[in-house]
């Protein structure tokens, strides 16, 4: 018995030692370093192949190891990463000449140069690459290595947000030599090798991904933790439990309702990072089941009927900002276009004038896709009920089923209105306007309001090819105003992306597109 007790104490001691990560060796100046940083995320990355990335959480893990020609800064502005400066663009907007950094090496020792950059982009465009997702980058016609430090990219048609689109993880540059080792093939990469501050160590599917610091990292900022372990903890309360018990140093997306108590815990810090995700009730603007929704004044009335500020305060626990434009503030092309202040009596009057008093609508919402999703949908239903609208639902299901229900052409629409979030892959208004372009109506895209306004379409088409950035901005601003007045959505809010980290850690950051940033975190 005594032996057992002793063993138990030894194990406890070992655990305490394991929990006391990152004791840190202070240097004369600059950040402390050493130890292990444990970060808990909610999803198990399907693949670490940059070309096949679809979620920001998995992308961020890849970003720690593999870098792109351009990146975002913490404010969301585009900055050179492996490029040495912004590119020069030909006057027809078709040719981009990108100067590259010199003296940079991949973590396997292969030098980074124009040939490697070309191979990276070509691989993304190659249909043989497993699950490759070039998306808008399929606008690229040819990629040429002009010389060792210059890359020339020719586009099929002018595409103004091209540099912003290069900030996506799928445009990351892998070491060409790594494509045939460690189980990698040119078609499918399991162990990504890049120029990033961390290097892949091991992975246990469903449990964790471990990375070690790249000692020869080229950047001015250096990785400070020797090891970073990304733990897969799918359940929100379990992630919270993990950081409270000392089993993790950083967690993303804790349960929103617990943020006040997490904020008041002196051993923890809460970062409410910006996100580019807007949440809205999308209205079927060509609805034949409830034709009243085809009238803009009815849709405007629904906007007046819903108290968004109260939803943000009480359902989202303050972790969101009420929308004042059909996109988040973090996008290039954003301008504030107005508000639909909560005014139920005005809503009632407008509905009555339009002959829509007491109309019936069917509402859909996913469960578990966005923070508080079904609860927000229920709150909206209750506000609509207060102005005399009969709401059937919210009918709800898991995400893939729900997506199957809403991603349908107008003739098969299952709901009159449905709850959906939209988060641009790069921070440009063109990505948000994918939601207001008739050429993106399913099955061609996910424009599920089926909204079409020629004025908006013209402005968006012009802006996509506009070289003058100020003009582009103005065009998006004008288009936003039109969308706001046509009200294809009940505009709700722009959510934030909460990150909780231990007070023993410093320099935890985030990008405004729901990516956490622990690359240069260090012991406090």
């Amino acid at each position: 018995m005594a032996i057992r007790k002793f063993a138990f104490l030894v194990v406890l001691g070992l655990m305490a030692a394991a929990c006391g990560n990152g004791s840190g060796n202070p240097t004369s100046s600059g950040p402390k370093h050493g130890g292990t940083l444990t970060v808990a995320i909610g999803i198990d990355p399907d693949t670490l192949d940059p070309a096949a990335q679809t979620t920001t959480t998995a992308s961020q893990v890849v970003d720690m190891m593999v870098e792109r020609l351009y990146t975002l800064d913490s404010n969301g502005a585009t900055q050179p990463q492996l490029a040495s400066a912004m590119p020069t663009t030909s006057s027809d907007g078709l040719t981009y000449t990108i100067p590259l950094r010199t003296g940079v090496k991949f973590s396997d020792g292969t030098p980074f140069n124009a040939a490697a950059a070309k191979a990276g982009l070509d691989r993304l465009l190659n249909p043989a690459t497993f699950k490759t997702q070039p998306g808008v980058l399929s606008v690229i016609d040819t990629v040429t290595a002009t010389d060792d430090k210059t890359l020339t990219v020719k586009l099929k048609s002018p595409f103004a947000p091209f540099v912003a689109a290069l900030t996506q993880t799928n445009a990351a540059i892998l070491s060409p030599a790594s494509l045939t080792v460690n189980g990698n093939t040119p078609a499918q990469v399991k162990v990504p090798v890049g120029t990033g501050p961390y290097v892949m160590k091991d992975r246990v599917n469903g449990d964790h991904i471990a990375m070690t610091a790249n000692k020869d990292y080229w950047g001015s900022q250096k990785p400070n933790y020797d090891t970073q372990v990304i733990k897969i903890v799918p359940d929100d309360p379990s992630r919270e439990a993990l950081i409270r018990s000392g089993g993790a140093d950083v967690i993303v997306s804790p349960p929103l309702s617990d943020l006040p108590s997490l904020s008041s815990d002196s051993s923890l810090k809460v970062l409410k990072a910006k996100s580019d995700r807007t949440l809205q009730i999308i209205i079927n603007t060509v609805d034949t089941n409830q034709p009243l929704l085809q009238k803009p004044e009815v849709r405007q009335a629904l906007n007046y009927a819903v108290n968004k500020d109260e939803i943000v305060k009480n359902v989202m626990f303050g972790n969101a900002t009420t929308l004042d434009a059909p996109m988040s503030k973090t996008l290039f092309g954003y301008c504030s276009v107005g508000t639909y202040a909560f005014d139920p009596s005005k809503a009632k009057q407008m509905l009555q004038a339009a002959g829509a008093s007491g109309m019936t609508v069917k509402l859909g919402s996913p469960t578990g896709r966005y923070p508080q999703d079904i609860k927000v949908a229920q709150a909206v239903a209750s506000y609509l009920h207060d102005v005399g609208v009969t709401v059937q639902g919210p009918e709800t299901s898991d995400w893939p089923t729900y997506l199957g229900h809403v991603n349908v052409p107008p003739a098969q629409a299952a709901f009159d209105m449905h709850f959906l979030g939209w988060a641009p892959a790069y921070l440009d208004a063109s990505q948000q306007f994918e939601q207001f372009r008739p050429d993106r109506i399913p099955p061609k895209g996910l424009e599920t309001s089926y909204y079409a306004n020629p004025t908006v379409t013209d402005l968006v088409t012009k802006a996509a090819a506009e070289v003058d950035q100020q003009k582009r901005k103005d065009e998006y601003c004008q288009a936003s105003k039109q969308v706001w007045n046509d009200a294809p959505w009940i505009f709700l809010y722009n959510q934030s992306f909460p990150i909780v980290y231990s007070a023993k850690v410093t320099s935890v950051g985030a990008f405004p597109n729901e990516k956490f940033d622990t690359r240069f975190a260090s012991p406090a």
Partner: protein
Amino acid sequence: MLTYVARRVLVSIPTVFGVATVIFLMVRLLPGDPARVIAGVLATPEDVDRIRHQFGLDQPLYVQYVTYLFHLLTGDLGTSTRTGQPVTQEIVSRLPYTMELAVVSTVIAVVVGVTAGVIAATRRGSALDLAISALAVFGLSMPVYWLGLMLIILLAIDIHAFPAAGAQNPLGFVLPSITLALFSLALVARQSRSAMLEVLNQDFVRTARAKGAPLRTVLVKHALRNALLPVVTVIGLQFGALIGGAVLTETVFSWPGVGRLLVDSIFSRDYPVVQGVVLMLAVAFILVNLLVDLLYAYVDPRIRYS
């Protein structure tokens, strides 16, 4: 005996084939386009089409079915559409974690459950019996999800005795095993109690006592041995359920087992992995049932398979 085993294995082949067919159709009946789910909401139509083609989901259903069966015959479960890894490798990498929980919690359930059941039966009507019965009802009715979180709060957050999540810590298995064991434990305890009560009332027990055999011997060698048959059945069924039923426990404790693989695969409409895991579970159930039947002969020598 061997003939019996061979016959049972042969008989189960149509069952496996039936499961393979039903699950093939069922995953395809689920709403939601796998190519769109995997490509994400921002994907262009070209991206979605390319992915659909890479998975062979653009082929007619019968072609997919024939290809699937043909591969199955050669032992190939296909390639995960979520991760691009062979399904067999996906399952094999997760199975040890699930087996660890299933075995440990079964051991806990059997040892504690049978002991509690026997004690309750021999002290029928006592306060102890009542307490055990009450605890068994608690165990049967507590949601795994709630129980898991309570254990985490008490034993991981408040007193730091065990890790809250993950399989890398050597003590990581303790909390999920206890959580998982409780339901089976309660079931085994109740089953043992009622089986023991039935046996204890029989003549041979009275005879044994009358001969002057010590109480312990009578309980363990005479009564328990005879009460084991229904208990073994329950344990077998529970073990089968544990292999597949650990979904919630694995989620709460971030345990990288087969249950979570199945859930992740269903939510990403990863047809090959869902098919593979369900087939594996079917085979596991068949094997466990066979084992239980063989155990009967050992527990009760009157039963013979020839």
